[in-house]
Structures are given as structure tokens and as C-alpha cells.
């Protein structure tokens, strides 16, 4: 079973040379730490920066340079700043190659919900609705179950949607799954996790074709 860093490490393998990548708040932010350093990648943050670098050293924080999670950041050579309309022009115009974000629920048809629990909690969609409606390559990073132990991979989302039919791949603490026309196709198991364990906590249709390899990290 993976922890949050493990999920991030596995997703980092999906980041290819030449990709512009948008990382959501939470687990996705950790992905940057695990991308191979022999490939060229630029991270975009929708509040208006391309070419994000690591967090600053203590004492070097600049209140005017943050990421979409409101964390202080640095920039790398080749970086640029721009306004919010231009930033979402990049996203909507499909110039960003890969979007990685968290979710509360994912449905087997690719629907995603991650911004609201009616009557209880409303964080707002932030940039997520623009991202999922625009990106062609969307990976969800999340735990396989919620705090109550219920599956987050469902036949249908029960919460208000963020986007429809958009998720292509899900990486959880237990597995890597691809969203196909038939449901969640199990592609890889987390180290030490059995297919039966994954079946038990996957409410949506789970498609299992042949032997499922354990993921390599």
C-alpha cells in the first residue's frame, strides 16, 4: 500500500519529456519532487506562473511569488508570470499537456467530483472545472477510500460534479486504473496489495484482464 509520497512517485512516471504540467493542491503538488531530472518539464500554476521551481530557502520567501496552493515558491530560468485570463487561456487552449488533481469521487465513466458536499462543506471549484473541461490528459491522485472507508471509485458520482467524462487515469494508494468504456481497468497493483483487496474497495465496475503486475516505483 502506498502513502501520499508513494502515489506522487508513481504519478511522476507519467510525466514525459517536454510536458507542461499543472499540479493541483495536495498529493499532486508532491509529484514535482519525483520527476526524473534527465527530462525537461515545466510546471504551470494557474494563479499565473510557468516554470515553478522548488520552495524557497527560509528567509528568501517573496509574498508576491506563490503557487495556486498559496505556498511561497521560486522560479527557474525560463519562467514567466502572467495574468489569470492568460493562465486559463493556456489551460483552455490545451497548451498544458498534463493535469494532475485530487478528487472526492471518480465515476467509471470518467466523471469527477471534488469541490462540494451539499450542506456540509464547500471549498469551491477554483480552477478545477476549467482544468478538467479542457485538458486531454487528466490523472487523478487520491486515496482509494474516504475516511469512512467507503470507495471513492464509483459507478456514479453522488456529489456535485466538477466535470463529466474527463478522467483518463486514477492513481490511488492501492492501484493504477485506467478509465475505459467498460469501467475502471486495473493496470497495476501497489506493492503488497492483492487484486482481491482492490476489488473489495472498488464500488465501480472493475475490469481485470489477465495477470495484474505490481507497480515499479
Amino acid at each position, binding site marked *: 500500500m502506498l502513502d501520499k509520497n508513494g502515489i506522487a512517485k508513481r504519478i511522476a512516471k507519467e510525466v514525459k519529456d517536454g510536458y507542461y504540467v499543472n499540479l493541483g493542491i495536495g498529493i499532486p503538488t508532491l509529484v514535482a519532487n519525483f520527476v526524473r531530472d534527465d527530462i525537461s518539464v515545466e510546471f504551470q500554476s494557474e494563479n499565473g506562473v510557468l516554470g515553478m521551481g522548488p520552495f524557497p530557502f527560509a528567509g528568501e520567501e517573496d509574498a*508576491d511569488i506563490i503557487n495556486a496552493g498559496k505556498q511561497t515558491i521560486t522560479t527557474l530560468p525560463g519562467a514567466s508570470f502572467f*495574468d489569470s485570463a492568460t493562465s*486559463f487561456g493556456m489551460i483552455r487552449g490545451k497548451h498544458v499537456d498534463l493535469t494532475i488533481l485530487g478528487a472526492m469521487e471518480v465515476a467509471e465513466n470518467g466523471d469527477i467530483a471534488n469541490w462540494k458536499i451539499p450542506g456540509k462543506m464547500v471549498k469551491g471549484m477554483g480552477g478545477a472545472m476549467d482544468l478538467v473541461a479542457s485538458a486531454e490528459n487528466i490523472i487523478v491522485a487520491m486515496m482509494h477510500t474516504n475516511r469512512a472507508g467507503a470507495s471513492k471509485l464509483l459507478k456514479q458520482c453522488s456529489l456535485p460534479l466538477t466535470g463529466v467524462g474527463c478522467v483518463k487515469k486514477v492513481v490511488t494508494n492501492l492501484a493504477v486504473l485506467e478509465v475505459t468504456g467498460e469501467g475502471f481497468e486495473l493496470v497495476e497493483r501497489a506493492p503488497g496489495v492483492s487484486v482481491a483487496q482492490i476489488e473489495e474497495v472498488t464500488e465501480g465496475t472493475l475490469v481485470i484482464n489477465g495477470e495484474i503486475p505490481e507497480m515499479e516505483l
Partner: protein
Amino acid sequence: MIRKKVDNVQEALEGIQSGMTLMLGGFGLCGIPENAISELVRLGVEDLTCISNNAGVDDFGLGLLLQKHQVKKMISSYVGENDEFERQMLSGELDVELTPQGTLAEKCRAAQAGFPAFFTPAGYGTEVAEGKEIREFNGKMYVLEEAFAADFSFVKAWKGDEAGNLIFKGTARNFNPCMCGAAKITVAEVEELVPAGQLDPNEIHIPGIFVQRIFQGTNYEKRIEQRTVRERL
């Protein structure tokens, strides 16, 4: 040169009234018009509709206006990190229109640039699209969104000149440029106000034509919401 300089925040906010619709720049606490917000609190204007990506934190930024119940309605994309905002929203004290962030930015830009409406894919198939026109272009579904209409726009820039030209710094740029010229009156506060001619015409982010009033701001706190650092090895 058409002179936009006013002497202080009081003069800059002349004409502001309860019940108005305001745009406020900033992302989280980054690039917010701190001086204008303080003055709105001091003036005590009420029943405001505020268009702003976030609503500050409990005790800073737009959170100050929420605390004093001066806001009737918020139009924002993200509520997180503000307990009082979430509480007022869930209790129904505050009317909240949640809007996808890119749509929020473009509804400002549409108002600035004279577009009444545009089609965007954001929110298709979600409750955001309810009651709105949906149309297919090239096999993909889009939602028709309309431009905002606001009375005042409050933005914060790094440098500005007396002609109203603005230059922003880093990610403090965010929504600020999109909101310039998007309301009847745009008020810009800047960290450094210089005479016309001192900014390179090639480096200006927002031409002065989009700004009606500009003033030198004071006492910027520039609070950091999530101070995050790495270890020195």
C-alpha cells in the same frame, strides 16, 4: 498625458455607496488592494456584491469585510482557508455564486474588452451550467457565460505612473489586469507611483486608459498565507 493621480485612498474611493458591485484583484492574499479594503471597512458601506477569486482569510483581506457583514454576495471560485466565509455561506447569511476560476477571469476580461458573452467548456455538465445555454462546437460542449457588470474595480499594482499605466510583480498580477477597465471606475493602488515617462512604454502591463484613479498605497503588510520553505542542505 491624461492625469489619473489622486492624493489618497479617501479621494480614490469617492462615490462608493452601499449596494454597489465591486471587483477586487488578488489571489488568496497575494496582490490584494489592501488600502482600498481598509477604506471600505472604515467607510462601513454595506450590502456589497464582491467579485474576487477568494475572500481573504478570517482576519485579513476581504475577510475583514465579511467579519463586519458588509458583504451581501460573493462571486468567487474558491472559499477554502476562510472559516467565517464558509460559515456565512452554509448558514445562508451570505449569498455565494461559485464560478470556475478561468470563467471568473474571462467574465472580467469580457467586461473590459466589450464582449457581452463567450462560450467556455468549463462547468459543462455541472450545476454551474444550470440554466445557461449549452452549445456544441466541433464535437465538444460549451457553456455561454456573460460579462460581469460592476461599479468599481479595485486593483493593486507594483509600479504605476500618473497616466495610470501599471506594472505588476510576480504572481501578484493574477486577476488585477483582467479587472482594469472592467467596471465603471477602476481604482489602482501601487507600491511606487512615478511621473509619466519613467516607465518604459514597452513594459507596461495595463495601459492607463483602463484606469480612472491611481494612488500611492501605504503600509503594505503583504501577508503570506502558506509560508513554505525547503531545508538548506
